[in-house]
């Protein structure tokens, strides 16, 4: 699997395959949401039940992990996990994962990093925030600072490495299957199930859970 193809340029910025695939995934999510929330009534039809279940489960998860007073983060967390779920499993519907590009994962991890710092500053005040680096012992200050920066690095590289590794293994598998004498119909199926579906959904869950833990940890 080579790097993302570049399709052209717009105002000096390259239009890469990652960018185009992200637009396609955004369009898919918008279509799914439009179908699920069309014609909402007090006695829900089947599509509305699915939408309500998703929102309720996510609200429960945010309430459990971050605390009941931080429910304002639930819409962002749901948007994050929906985008990641569609983006990581792109191997199934033939697109190169946008999260197999370090630019995309670093962007998402920086969102979490800036949210952590901003809400930590806002809820603890400048003095409390700076004192937080001196806990539990003052000589741990450089380790705490590096630990703060280690969080977005590990978030982004974990997601990038898992998706790129899965993509390369699938590409190697397909090129190895190209030299067979019979038509290899069912052989890639368990690999797609493990690398695309299981690993993709697990990594999106991990990214969202870690973001929730970091943001709520910085706020108290």
């Amino acid at each position, binding site marked *: 699997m080579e*790097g993302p193809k570049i399709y052209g340029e717009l105002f000096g910025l390259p239009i890469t395959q990652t960018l185009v695939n992200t637009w396609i995934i955004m369009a898919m999510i918008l279509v799914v949401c439009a179908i699920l929330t069309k014609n909402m009534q007090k006695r829900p039809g089947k599509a509305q039940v699915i939408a309500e279940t998703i929102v309720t489960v996510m609200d429960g998860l945010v309430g459990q992990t971050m605390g009941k007073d931080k429910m304002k983060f639930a819409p962002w967390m749901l948007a994050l996990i929906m985008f990641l779920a569609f983006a990581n499993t792109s191997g199934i519907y033939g697109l190169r994962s946008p999260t197999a590009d370090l630019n995309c994962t670093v962007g998402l991890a920086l969102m979490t990093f800036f949210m952590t710092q901003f809400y930590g500053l806002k809820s603890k005040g400048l003095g409390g925030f700076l004192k937080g680096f001196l806990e539990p012992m003052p000589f741990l200050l450089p380790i705490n600072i590096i630990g703060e920066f280690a969080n977005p690095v590990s978030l982004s*590289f974990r997601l*990038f*490495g898992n998706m790129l*590794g899965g993509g390369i293994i699938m590409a190697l598998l397909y090129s190895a299957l190209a030299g067979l004498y019979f038509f290899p119909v069912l052989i890639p199926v368990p690999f797609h199930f493990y690398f695309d579906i299981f690993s993709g959904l697990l*990594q999106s869950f*991990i990214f969202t859970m870690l973001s929730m833990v970091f943001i709520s940890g910085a706020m108290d």
Partner: protein
Amino acid sequence: MEGLDFIKACSAIGAGIAMIAGVGPGIGQGFAAGKGAEAVGRQPEAQSDIVRTMLLGAAVAETTGIYGLIVALILLFANPFY
């Protein structure tokens, strides 16, 4: 032998040595799976909670193995030295 061949040869060695990082998650996730099985044996009703915690921790433990894989893949496919 050319200089470029020597770089390629040593990149191959480096890529292999980088995958020694796979030892750690193997040991750690195995320990987690064992403890998870023991916990489910003790309280089978909590199985979904236990499995969710175990998978969460195992996926985090996977990270350094993935770092080693990234360095090995960079040395194999995106080598900056030639």
